[in-house]
């Protein structure tokens, strides 16, 4: 877009949204649909929906390294490579170059980033679960961290609101632990999965449901209006979906915002500072640096939404120093950057399934089974707090089983063209407790090539998490055994915080200004026209995937912000 940097008027909007990912997109949609002119600031390059998914329709043999990661890509994307194979040729361009965007690990931290339009919504896992009532109440009951300033009922209508727009496929189960939402038809289970579900009901009275996922099983008008079609079961979502069948900012919220003609998007523009006016007692705009030209420009707005991703949002607050806020905007409580949470994973079990030789599946389901939390729930009591859920399922082994089999030659080759035996596996997603010692801060000296201070991570899993991990591992094996599966092997690879890519908590909501950064409407306590609605806002983590909750909080905060603007409360 053309911008005259000297003309403040041209650089003035009703609202600025920093970030174009899961929550930035939702903020832009909600604010524009309510009539505000919005400037969205994205630090990375522009990615156009469908047009720029240049690997989406490629054949397996079109990729030189056939899905493997090259040593030089792994080196360049040294942090992203910790997540696994996604920095390969199929999806690598949607993961940030860590060499150009370094950070400091006082303790190891796996920071997976996506600097481009749509951010991590481009390749999220799409699992979408409502929090339950307990999730909002547990901190207060157990004396962990601080209490949430809201309860389930505050968010419930907003869950429904965003679920309808996003499109979540799932099965209603009537469970308190995993509240039902507004669902599109569920994806089917395979024969061994149905067997497993029945066995868990019989032996443990534990429910197993099909994953609730943001892939359209049956697109509704709200989706087709935006050009979104139904899932084609290719399971190549992370390359970008040419059908718009999974939800991302690119397929959903940004097109919705664009059709209002109220949205402008700046790319390659790194927000470095929020401009605070001490006399007015509010923020007036955002300072950005063009990542290519290094040109610095200021943009102005009545309200500012921070949706840069939990860590970058906190860094932006910390870097916005003024006479009023010497420790960073809104940081009177010293809680900005603290209480980093994530979900722990890398722990579970797998097994061989005997039988079901006549059963197979057609198509690739981009989804798995879900076993909701059963620990510290109801009558169950453990020697640790909170709980975990499992994601996993069954599949027949493919040709790659041949690597571990003896033999070679014609009959070996022929045998690998048949579907292999069924395998069953689950991995846990465990809640991480809020702990103010788990923090990130800005390095006082070291800066990136744009002159922005580097983030230092100093956070680690605590005893509660490690105790939970053992249970995640053992309980998984126990369930697979109870289902009658054989050759069970467990794994428990302790990772760093961050690898769940659910990093959150660095500007938490709370009831008191002394101990929190945001109020019940995601408004910075001491700077009321700044809203934080990405993962930074989270007061606790639950064990379910967070994006749908972030989006519900965002829609709710946008609604509040616009009503406050109308009431002239943010002037």
């Amino acid at each position: 877009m053309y911008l005259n940097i000297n003309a403040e008027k041209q650089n003035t909007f009703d609202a600025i949204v920093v970030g174009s990912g899961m929550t930035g997109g939702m903020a832009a949609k909600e604010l524009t649909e309510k009539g505000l002119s919005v400037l969205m600031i994205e630090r990375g390059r522009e990615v156009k929906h469908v047009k720029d998914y240049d690997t989406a329709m490629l054949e397996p043999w079109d990729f030189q390294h056939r899905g493997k990661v090259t040593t030089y890509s792994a080196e360049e994307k040294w942090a992203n490579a910790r997540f696994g194979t996604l920095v390969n040729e199929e999806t690598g361009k949607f993961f940030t170059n860590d060499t150009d965007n370094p950070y400091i690990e006082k303790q190891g931290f796996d920071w997976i980033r996506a600097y481009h339009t749509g951010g991590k919504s481009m390749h999220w896992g799409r699992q979408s679960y409502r929090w339950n009532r307990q999730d909002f109440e547990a901190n207060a009951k157990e004396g962990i961290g601080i209490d949430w300033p809201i309860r389930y009922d505050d968010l419930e209508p907003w869950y429904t609101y965003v679920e309808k727009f996003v499109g979540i496929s799932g099965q209603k189960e009537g469970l308190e632990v995993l509240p039902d939402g507004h669902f599109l038809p569920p994806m089917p289970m395979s024969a061994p999965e149905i067997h497993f579900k029945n066995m868990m009901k019989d032996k443990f009275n534990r429910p197993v449901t099909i994953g609730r996922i943001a892939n359209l099983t049956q697109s509704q008008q709200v989706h087709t209006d935006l050009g979104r079609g139904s899932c084609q079961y290719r399971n190549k979502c992370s390359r970008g979906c040419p059908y718009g069948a999974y939800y991302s900012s690119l397929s959903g919220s940004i097109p919705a915002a664009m059709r209002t003609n109220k949205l402008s998007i700046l790319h390659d523009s790194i927000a470095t500072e929020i401009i605070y006016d001490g006399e007015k007692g509010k923020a007036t705009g955002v300072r950005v640096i063009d990542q290519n030209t290094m040109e610095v420009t200021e943009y102005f707005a009545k309200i500012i939404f921070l949706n840069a991703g939990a860590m970058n949002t906190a860094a932006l607050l910390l870097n916005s120093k003024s006479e009023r806020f010497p420790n960073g905007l809104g940081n009177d409580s010293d809680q900005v950057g603290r209480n980093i949470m994530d979900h722990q994973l890398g722990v579970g079990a797998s097994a061989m399934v005997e039988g079901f030789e006549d059963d197979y599946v057609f198509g690739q389901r981009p989804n798995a089974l879900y076993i909701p939390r059963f620990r510290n729930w109801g009558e169950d009591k453990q020697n640790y707090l909170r709980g975990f859920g499992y994601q996993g399922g069954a599949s027949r082994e493919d040709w790659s089983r041949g690597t571990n089999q003896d033999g070679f030659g014609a009959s070996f080759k022929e045998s690998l063209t048949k579907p292999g035996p069924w395998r069953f596996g689950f991995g846990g997603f465990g809640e991480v407790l809020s702990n103010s010692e788990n923090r990130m801060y800005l390095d006082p000296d070291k800066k990136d090539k744009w002159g922005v201070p580097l983030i230092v991570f100093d956070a680690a899993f605590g005893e509660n998490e490690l105790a939970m991990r053992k249970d995640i591992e053992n309980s998984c094996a126990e369930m697979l055994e109870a289902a009658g599966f054989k050759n069970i092997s467990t794994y428990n690879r302790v990772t760093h915080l961050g690898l769940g890519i659910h990093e959150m908590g660095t500007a938490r909501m709370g009831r008191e200004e002394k101990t929190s950064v945001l109020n019940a409407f995601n408004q910075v306590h001491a700077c009321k026209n700044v809203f934080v609605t990405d993962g930074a806002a989270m007061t606790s983590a639950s064990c379910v995937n967070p994006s749908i909750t972030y989006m519900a909080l965002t829609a709710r905060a946008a609604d509040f912000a616009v009503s406050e603007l109308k009431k002239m409360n943010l002037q």
Partner: protein
Amino acid sequence: MNRRDSIKKAALLLGGVISAPTLLALKSCKNREASISDEFALSDVHRKIVSEIAELILPKTDTPGAIDAGVPAFIEMMILDCYKKPEQTSFMEGVQALAAEDFTGMSSEEKTARLQKLEADAKEEMKARDVKQTKIGDNIDEETMKAQAKGLPFWRLMKELTLLGYFTSEAGITSSFEYVQIPTKFEPIKIEADQKAYAY
């Protein structure tokens, strides 16, 4: 032959296909040179051995074989691009040993027997390696462990790359599996007689 030449040669074998990122990495990534074993450079004899072994693993039958699917050049390119020093060294040592035994001059029965022995040895090595790594892992940090780790055995590398190269190639996929680009649905089904696996 130095590293760059070796990579270029591998590219030529692939029909001149060398990705832009690969070329870029050759220019820009200083560490890359350091991370590749100096000893990894296949001679024509070595290439013949790799080619013959790949074809023995997945021979031409009524469907294409490893050579038809371009597997030998793929293996060399992959060892260069996706594996580090320990594997490159291990691969080189493996192929050199077979060259010293005049593998290509053996009868086909001798070759098969030699590969069976290679497989048995690799299996033992993998077992010992798992035990050793678990033991080391208790006391020494992961990085030290990685540095000390010996590369995967030559046979294992040959086998996994032959399978990968073949079963992801156009010739391999379309002749081995029921290849479906756009399934449009997901449903549990019953297997038919002589059902091939689906590939997508």
